[in-house]
């Protein structure tokens, strides 16, 4: 005879609910609106937080177990890559420039996501949502740290990595990703969920990680491949959180639809503009190309994003404004961006180059009807000037869009020969934009976007010089002073790839492995 009754076997959902939902309570000694002070000011109406469906059900013990397993694998690969001088197995040292862009432009955003999700994970009144956000906050700390550790090896040997923190907060094009995340974290918690959880993680993140990291693998970078794919394994949890967040808001109250739709429009466009850098990495910066930006856009935006917006149509949500323009512009985006960085080589801490004739043929094949017509002649012209020892450098500072902060480099919808300009007047001042998308965002919230720290404006106002600089000196060179203030190693970080220290080192080190010279 036994007295031991088997305890009730609880299913995954039931068990998880007891492990999270049961933990909180309606406070009585302090009013709930004081405990959750940021929950209502955006106008999102929530009637029942219990209707929140947990997007995934990981208790902390399982989280620690699986994440530790991932980390052990990842750091083992990183160590092996460093110990074996894995960098010398890369297709070409030009590849490393995409990592410089990544560490200075993307990794600091992972950090912002960490802090942002800690804030939202404290602010949302629903316990299921809070736990999911906090777990994402912890994951995002993982991403920034694994990226720093992975690229630390490159920093020891190659230029342009050494001042990523300082540069992210100052350099002209890095204000594009920085302002994107500053915009999200300064919005309310619900908007943050649509901005980062939904629009960025669900709609756009695959475009950043999957083709780019496949490209890393294809170019022999096992270190970057390992952190990238390993980060993505968390990303799938983050994506489902974003999807649940939007469904939850839409199901709670019909009044939420117009607010959410505006956020979808805004954040799709904000995110899409940041991805300009990715388009350029895929088409121009990977020596061995894995897929074109156009192909990546078709698979991860048009096909998968299309399926998503079909699914959301039942709530009355339509695809974001600007979606069609983004689809139309896929054949222009990367060439327009790379042309800009090529011209402003002197102010960017990574190397640029004119695409080789074979690479131009690849572009022509991937972009029939546009590359040869609009972009090849320009690159060939620059190649001729380089051959003549007269590389083109643009010494004039560009006008920036007040919202996305990208220089005015994009063309009019339907006319790739004319630069697109828009403007609005607010409080007696005229503000300039690169597109209808950015102008719409400004017009909806001008009091926010007039605050932007625009790098070019700041340079002209004299705010980007070292304290000891003397602008009245006869030989004062403002551009040189600015890049010194950026903490670039002048003539090294910002040199053209041809003749750079990276190129020389890579060649010499590789030679050491294959010859006795």
């Amino acid at each position, binding site marked *: 005879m036994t007295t031991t009754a088997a305890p009730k076997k609880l299913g995954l959902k039931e068990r998880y609910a007891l492990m999270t939902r049961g933990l909180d309570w309606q406070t009585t000694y302090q009013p709930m609106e004081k405990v959750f002070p940021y929950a209502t000011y955006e106008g999102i109406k929530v009637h029942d937080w219990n209707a929140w469906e947990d997007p995934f059900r990981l208790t902390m013990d399982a989280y620690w177990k699986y994440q*530790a397993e991932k980390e052990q694998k990842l750091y083992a690969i990183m160590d092996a890559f460093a110990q074996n001088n894995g960098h010398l197995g890369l297709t070409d040292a030009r590849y490393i420039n995409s990592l410089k862009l990544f560490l200075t432009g993307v990794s600091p955003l992972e950090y912002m996501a960490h802090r942002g999700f800690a804030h939202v994970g404290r602010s949302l009144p629903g316990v299921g949502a*809070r736990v999911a956000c906090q777990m994402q906050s912890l994951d995002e700390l993982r991403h920034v740290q694994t990226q720093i550790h992975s690229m630390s090896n490159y920093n020891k040997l190659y230029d342009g990595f050494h001042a990523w923190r*300082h540069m992210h907060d100052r350099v002209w094009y890095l204000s594009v990703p920085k302002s994107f995340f500053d915009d999200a974290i300064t919005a309310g918690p619900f908007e943050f969920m649509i901005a980062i959880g939904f629009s960025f993680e669900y709609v756009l993140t695959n475009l950043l990680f999957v083709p780019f990291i496949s490209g890393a693998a294809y170019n022999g970078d096992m270190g970057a491949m390992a952190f990238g794919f390993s980060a993505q394994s968390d990303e799938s949890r983050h994506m489902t959180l974003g999807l649940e967040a939007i469904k939850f808001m839409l199901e709670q109250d019909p009044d939420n639809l117009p607010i959410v739709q505006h956020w979808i429009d805004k954040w799709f466009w904000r995110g899409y503009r940041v991805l300009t850098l990715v388009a350029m990495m895929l088409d121009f910066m990977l020596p061995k190309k894995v897929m074109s930006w156009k192909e990546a856009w078709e698979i991860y935006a048009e096909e998968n994003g299309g399926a998503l917006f079909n699914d959301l149509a039942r709530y009355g949500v339509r695809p974001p404004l600007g979606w069609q323009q983004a689809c139309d512009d896929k054949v222009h985006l990367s060439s327009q961006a790379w042309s800009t960085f090529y011209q402003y080589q002197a102010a960017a801490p990574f190397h640029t180059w004119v695409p080789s004739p074979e690479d131009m043929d690849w572009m022509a094949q991937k972009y029939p009807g546009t590359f040869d017509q609009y972009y090849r002649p320009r690159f060939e012209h620059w190649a001729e000037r380089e051959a003549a020892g007269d590389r083109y450098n643009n010494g004039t500072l560009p006008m920036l869009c007040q919202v996305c902060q990208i220089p005015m480099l994009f063309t009019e919808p339907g006319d790739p020969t004319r630069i697109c300009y828009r403007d609005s007047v607010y409080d007696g001042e005229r503000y300039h934009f690169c597109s209808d998308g950015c102008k719409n965002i400004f017009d909806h919230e001008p009091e926010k976007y007039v605050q932007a720290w625009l790098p070019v404006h700041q340079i002209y106002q004299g705010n980007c010089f070292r304290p000891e600089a003397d602008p009245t000196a006869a030989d004062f060179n403002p551009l040189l002073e600015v890049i010194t203030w950026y903490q670039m190693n002048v003539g090294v970080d910002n040199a053209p790839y041809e003749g750079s220290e990276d190129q020389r080192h890579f060649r010499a080190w590789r030679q050491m492995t294959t010859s006795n010279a």
Partner: protein
Amino acid sequence: MQIDLRTVSITPVRQTFDHVARRIGPNKTASRYQEGVLDVQANANFHYRPTWDPGHEIFDASRTKLVMADWYAFRDPRQMYYATYTIARARMQETAEADFEFVEKRGLADTFAADAKRRALDLLVPLRHVAWGANMNNSSICAYGYGTSFTAPCIFQAMDQLGIAQYLTRLGLLLGDVEALDEAKAAWMDAPQWQGLRHLVEDLLVIGDPFELYVAQNFALDGLLFPLVYGTFDTALTVQAGPTVSMLVRFQNDWFAETSKWVDATIKTAAAESSANAELVSGWATTWRDRAVAAIAPLMDAALGGDAPAAMTDAVTAFDARAAKCGLTL
């Protein structure tokens, strides 16, 4: 440093990132902890003010009254970054899992004396709500605090407290099934002996100063609660009925010993910065110690009976000694 490459070697161009080199000195190899936390937070040229707190920048040291010349003076003596954190916790959870499995398989919960079981359920299971408050508060410190070497360990602490809430939930399920959780929640909401602690936890949820919240939650409340519950009470229960429950709270015991090193280092650094800081932190520690003592005392009366007053006195003495060691004057 030389990297061996077959018969030739490559001399690194530099050892670490500039901002790390400025802190550790030139030509030194940085640790992964240093590269992973030092100066990782943005500190300049924020584009917009938070719509939820327009009086401050996104990251703004003036959210707390504590004044530091350099917030990266705070260092975690455990040198935890994400990988070392998860690997340390994965080991602890493996032990905890084995303990829970042992108790479950041997049916030890059923053979545990009924009155001892009642005692354990009454004190331990409602504490899952306290852990939940600690989770919220550390998430808050991580979000609104300043400087990665101070804020990053707070998200570890937040998730650890969620883990503790979940271990306490499992303990409740194992000793008393789902009803035990319902009873504990009812006690938390309405039983007189729990109201002082619930009042305190709710007051912590509305503290706006992240460093005051740190002192109140991680130093004062946990600094008294953990030794009393997982030390004194656990020992008393083991004497009464054997170590079954002790096995189920081993995680909390090991965790408190480990995290206290970090909490002490943080308090010590804050107090050592200036006499104004020492006074400020001492004031917070005194206020929240007194609140914690008043809130915990009725629970100890119920759990320890006649031994409670002496246990409380010992706990406060030990806490004051710890505070003094950290440079505080209580």
